[in-house]
């Protein structure tokens, strides 16, 4: 498995996209810290990078990589290698390179300028979201034979999780604001990994606001041992389940 992963990594490094991604993140993060008068604003901008750009790039890059390495996958399939192993090697290779790109691009500036609980939670959330959206992208690409359709699906998924889902939640919460919706909200948040990541960071960043009103309930839940276990557990499920489904589909796929 590691052997295959090595070749996947080698291939990815040659394409230079990940290097460009790393540089982009580095320049942007560094820029935020340099340009903004105060750290909180820079961190806020970084938050948007982590919640929006990282999932998007993870998805697009993974899908394109998958279709570009179709030949490689085909070649491997005629070798005495199991399909699951091939797909997992691809996943490991892609996520490893994206995570290293993220950790260098965002991690290093954060280490220098904002090495505190907010910075660390930002990095953790970024890594988790990279893994989750890589996993989702594999599912999307394995499901559709056609490159355009695969990328389309990935984009749609991203759009859904980044924007539409929250819009729906907002709509639901607003229209049922006369009822106690806090518990429902907790459940709803589990169905969107971006939300989970955001809440995870918010617990560090907006702890003051979270202590008010219903916020205290969220803080109490997500801040407690159980809540952290819940968040981490659901995040793991978000990594594992799409990849599991992808492996299952890939296993029975005609090539």
């Amino acid at each position, binding site marked *: 498995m590691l052997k295959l992963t090595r070749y996947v990594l080698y291939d990815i490094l040659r394409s230079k996209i990940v290097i460009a991604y790393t540089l982009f993140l580095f320049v942007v993060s560094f820029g935020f810290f340099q340009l903004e*008068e*105060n750290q*909180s*604003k820079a961190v*806020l901008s970084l*938050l*948007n990078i982590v*919640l*929006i750009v990282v999932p998007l790039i993870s998805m697009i890059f993974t899908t394109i990589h998958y279709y570009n390495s179709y030949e490689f996958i085909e070649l491997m399939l005629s070798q005495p290698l199991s399909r699951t192993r091939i797909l997992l090697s691809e996943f490991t290779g892609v996520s490893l390179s994206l995570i290293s790109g993220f950790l260098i691009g965002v991690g290093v500036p954060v280490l220098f300028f904002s090495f505190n609980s907010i910075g660390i939670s930002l990095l953790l959330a970024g890594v988790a979201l990279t893994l989750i959206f890589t996993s989702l992208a594999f599912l999307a690409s394995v499901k559709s034979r056609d490159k355009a359709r695969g990328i389309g699906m990935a984009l749609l998924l991203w759009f859904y999780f*980044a*924007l539409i889902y*929250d*819009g729906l*939640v*907002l709509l639901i*919460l*607003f229209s049922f*604001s006369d009822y106690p*919706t*806090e518990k429902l*909200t*907790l459940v709803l*948040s589990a169905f969107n990994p*971006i*939300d989970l990541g*955001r*809440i995870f*960071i*918010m617990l560090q*960043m*907006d*702890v*003051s*606001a*979270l*202590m*008010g*009103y*219903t*916020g*205290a309930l*969220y803080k109490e839940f997500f801040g407690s041992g159980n809540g952290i276990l819940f968040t981490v557990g659901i995040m793991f499920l978000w990594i594992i389940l799409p990849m599991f489904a992808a492996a299952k589909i890939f296993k029975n796929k005609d090539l």
Partner: protein
Amino acid sequence: MKWPLIILNICLFAQASGNTITVGKNAPITTLRQAIQIANAGDTILLQKGIYKEGNILISKPVFLFGIGNPILDGENKNEILTLTGKNIVITGIQFANAGYSSMNDYAAIKVIDATGILIEKNIITNASFGVHMANTINSVIRNNQIVGTNKSEHLSGNGIHLWKCDQMLVESNSISGHRDGIYFEFVTASTIKNNQSKKNVRYGLHFMFSNNDAYLGNTFENNGAGVAVMYSKEVRMENNFFHKNWGASAYGILLKDISNSHILNNRFVQNTVGIHMEGSSRIEIGKNVFESNGWALKVQASCDDNSFFNNNFYGNSFDVATNGTMALNRFRGNYWDKYEGYDLNKDGTGDVPYHPVSMYAMVVEQSPSTLILMRSFMVTLLDKAEKAMPSLTPEHLADNAPVIKPNKL
């Protein structure tokens, strides 16, 4: 200044006239009660090291009670320890332990009734329901005391420093924790609360009512259950204080209720659920404060008018301003807002477009608090951006017309 004068008077008075009575295990007089009995006005009583369990002691003549080597007066959890009345009494350097609790009376470690010219200095008060309780007292000083309560519930504990119906008081450099309210002011006028540390009290760090013409300056209020409440008063100066980590569903840096003609200047509000919550307040000048990392920097209810917010710096607050009304009866000018995205073409340091500190999302959260879970989401950002482009729900006239580009130098 009149304060140093008073203190000087007391000291001169104590030293100039009167004898010195020493109380201690090996001294001729072994109990404080005895010493008080035999003391004449103006005498000095030196209380030597030791534990004294003498129940309630009443002092009604001008004496100078001076603890040497941290003597302990123990109330054995059933007595009020010292009761003072009259004038020119000094209590210093004594530890008061275990003053009793009663649901009928407000037992205190030191209670002062109907007095003037009292100085309570450098004492330590532990495990008392009320620490220092003063009623109907004028011209007195509570300074450099350490008052540590036991953090019981709101009903079971009393206030650290409790002043009722007093005038011309100075509360300075005390540290108070673990009480119901750190400092409690009711009907107290022309007084100053200065450089105190009020932390981890069950309810308010400072509870302030019906008290006009007072100032509180340079205090730190941290981690109190509900922050600071200033109510039903006018002509209050609040300057150079530090409000920190007052967290909770109804915790405020400052809660202002029916306050008028007051000043809130040069304070720092950091990591409070709400920096300043104001209702029914008018003609308050709120300037040169720093609001940093609060949930809501300001909550201005519709019942407030004619207040002005100027030259404050707002950084990293989840929400800058929230309101429940649509009217803009207050003025914002020359503040620094880290969320401001305008420009300054003529480079005069002032933004060329107004800043609307009430965001759409702040309005939404006000109506439907559970939407707080969506904070910082892309959806909310879009919502705010859209609202900025076409204001429909947020109060359009509530704006800072001259926001500064760089933080105000404070």
